[in-house]
């Protein structure tokens, strides 16, 4: 074995080949170089003139919206539980490479750096301990025979995560749901929509791929209608029309706007998830169906035992992408006058005359939060894709 040596000749060849290989290459290099210089110079000139006070005094508003100060503690247990489940899942399933762990760390550090304040140092410390402890312990359990139990437990915890979050937010006279806001609201809305839309999506996908004409037509009409109009239009429906269609039972027609947004987003998500799952259903080789028929399984059993587990396994990455899309789309709840992260980011520069002209700073912080979550998730999705071996069969 020879020690890797830096070969200057190779580097030189690579450089020449890459940048000055042909006339077109030189032109491209010059053009790209100019573009990069332009962008870097404008970023530098922006940063040198930027003032971040507009963000730093509105940290809580950005993250939690109008949630009252005495209820701020409720956000931490949610973060801890999530951190525990997330990190243990990585330990139990994933084989993260160094690069991916670094990305995760960066994704964690960036919001922490932006929103750090001394009063929460203990909370952040607890988060880090929970995260690393659960990761390491699940790594250790992985080598033992209890891995199966751990995985089952984690799956049920993932399902329980949203009810748990609701409980933490509401327990002991929590704030009204229309006070939820900021980043918390975006995450809650997207998670609820995907989790609630998932079962409905499966039903619709199965319904659309049956041979029964009535069910097939009804499901197709549902899916295509929901996908036909933009999300803002559906949200507007939730604002104006939904209360008039809900029965006058249990105060259903007096739902808070947040819950209405969740309902509409769930229905919206279900149509898109249905299309994704239908793609998965179509990818199941017909031999599987014939085998199920040969075993004399009924339709329900055939779907439940043979087809759906395979189909859903195939479409997990696509569903993660749907989640990313939906997560970005939760910023549209401005139409319902909810104060989500983006809305807060738009309001805070207008509060104080000294923040005049500081909209870009606020907007950048908002964008970076959305960006971090989306990038982490899309890396996760491509990782799952590789682990499941989709497309490499």
């Amino acid at each position, binding site marked *: 074995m020879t020690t890797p040596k830096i070969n200057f000749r190779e580097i030189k060849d690579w450089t020449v*080949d*890459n*940048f000055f*290989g*042909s006339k*077109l*290459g030189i032109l*491209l*290099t010059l*053009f*790209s*170089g100019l*573009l*990069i210089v332009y962008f870097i110079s404008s970023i530098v000139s922006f940063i040198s003139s930027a003032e971040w006070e507009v963000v730093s005094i509105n940290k809580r508003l950005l993250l939690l919206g109008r949630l009252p100060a005495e209820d701020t503690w409720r956000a931490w247990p949610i973060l801890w539980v999530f951190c525990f489940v997330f990190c243990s899942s990585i330990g139990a399933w994933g084989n993260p490479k160094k690069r991916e762990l670094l990305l995760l760390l960066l994704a964690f550090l960036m919001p922490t750096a932006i929103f750090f304040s001394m009063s929460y140092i203990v909370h952040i410390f607890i988060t880090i301990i929970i995260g690393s402890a659960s990761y390491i312990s699940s790594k250790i359990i992985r080598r033992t025979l209890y891995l199966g139990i751990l995985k089952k437990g984690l799956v049920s915890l993932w399902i329980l995560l949203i009810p748990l979050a609701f409980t933490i937010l509401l327990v002991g006279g929590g704030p009204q749901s229309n006070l939820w806001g900021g980043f918390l609201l975006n995450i809650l809305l997207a998670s609820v929509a995907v989790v609630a839309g998932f079962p409905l999506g499966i039903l619709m996908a199965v319904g659309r791929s049956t041979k*029964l*004409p*009535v*069910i097939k037509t*009804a499901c197709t009409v549902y899916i295509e*209608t929901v996908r*036909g*109009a*933009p*999300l*803002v*239009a559906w949200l*507007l*429906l939730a604002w*104006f*029309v939904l209360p*008039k*269609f809900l029965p006058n039972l249990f105060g259903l027609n007096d739902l808070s706007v947040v819950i209405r947004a969740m309902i509409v987003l769930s229905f919206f998500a279900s149509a898109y998830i249905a299309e994704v799952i239908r793609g998965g259903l179509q990818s199941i080789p017909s031999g599987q169906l014939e085998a199920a028929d040969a075993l004399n399984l009924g339709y329900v059993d055939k779907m439940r035992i043979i087809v759906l587990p395979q189909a859903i396994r195939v479409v997990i990455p696509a569903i993660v992408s749907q989640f*990313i899309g939906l997560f*970005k*789309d939760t*910023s*549209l709840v*401005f*139409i319902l006058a909810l104060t989500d992260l*983006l809305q807060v980011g*738009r309001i805070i520069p207008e509060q104080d005359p000294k923040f005049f*002209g500081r*909209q*870009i700073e606020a*907007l950048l912080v*908002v*964008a970076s939060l*959305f*960006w971090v979550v*989306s*990038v982490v998730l*899309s890396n996760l999705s491509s990782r799952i894709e590789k682990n499941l071996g989709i497309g490499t069969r």
Partner: protein
Amino acid sequence: MIQVSFLIFVALLGTYLFSRAFQLELSLSHFRSRAGFGLSHTFLVDYTSNDSRWVAYFTGVVNTIRVCLVAIFLTTILGTIMGVARLSKNFLTSRIAWTYVEVLRNTPLLIQIIFWQIVFLQLPQISEAITFGDTTAISNRGILLPWISDNGGAQIWFIFLGMVAVGSLFISYFLNKREDESGKYLSLAGKKLNGNLVGIIFFMIAAIVTFFAFGRPVSMDIPEIIQNNKGTWMQSGGFDLSPEFAAILFALVIYTGTFITEIVRGSIQSLSRGQTEAAEAIGLSKYQAMTLVILPQALRSIIPPLTNQFLNLTKNSSLAVVIAYPDLFMVSRTIMNNSGHALPVFFLILLTYLFLSLCISLVMNLINRRVTRIGA
């Protein structure tokens, strides 16, 4: 059996919903009454606040179609360039395309729209407008571009030009077909004249001849920025790209472009490397290999997902409401607020977007059929 019970369930749900719906005002008759609100952008439709709600609504539809058409055109170009750039051997170029996709695909479109609006509103004031040799003026009231103006008879001339264009397309088609079938071609002074070239030359000559024959129906309209006697700055002439229109256009083009980049990249990568090597082997230049061999083949797997992106773009154009660009959605929402009859207006929105989506799908299916037929 299942179907019957399902049908009963749907029927019950339907009856309930209809019984609720009939308690509401369902007709669109209020659309005939006076709209009573002004719109900042009108295009092709002469709209004032005294017109009926229908006129307001159609102004909105035209505004939506306008922004979508321009955006679809530009985003396709941007996406294709970036998709090819992502696969470039040049390290800098491929990194630029990679950064573009990774940064902008993962931030919400809404943020990008608001960002561009802020950027366009932070441009210099009109008194200090940036000008490029009297042809273009950029200020926070919008971007003024040179445009054509009607000297009378422009419409007839445009219709005539359309006919000439169809005629020249026909000539090129005929000449190309003849060359394919019999190998004959026109030649001038011993040089071969390509069918496409003949068509273009024919079109240019016809256009120039008719331009004078119709007595110069159009002329250039140069934008002007002047200070009137009261000291206020006025802009006149030219094509006014307002900050709102520019913001929604930029955001839609750049955001959708990231997805198209990925589609183009994926399709090119799915072609076997043998295609590139074969193109190299027969001595095509890189540009020729890309435009004659790679892209036409990649187009087959590009078009179906591209259609999807165009549909998304059309639906996403409704986000223009956040910066008060009066598109279909914003106008309908205003009507909804003013009239208080939300449900019928909502169905109108739904049907209009469905109609627009159908039109796009139809055109794209035609293109798709043509693309998949070649050499298949």
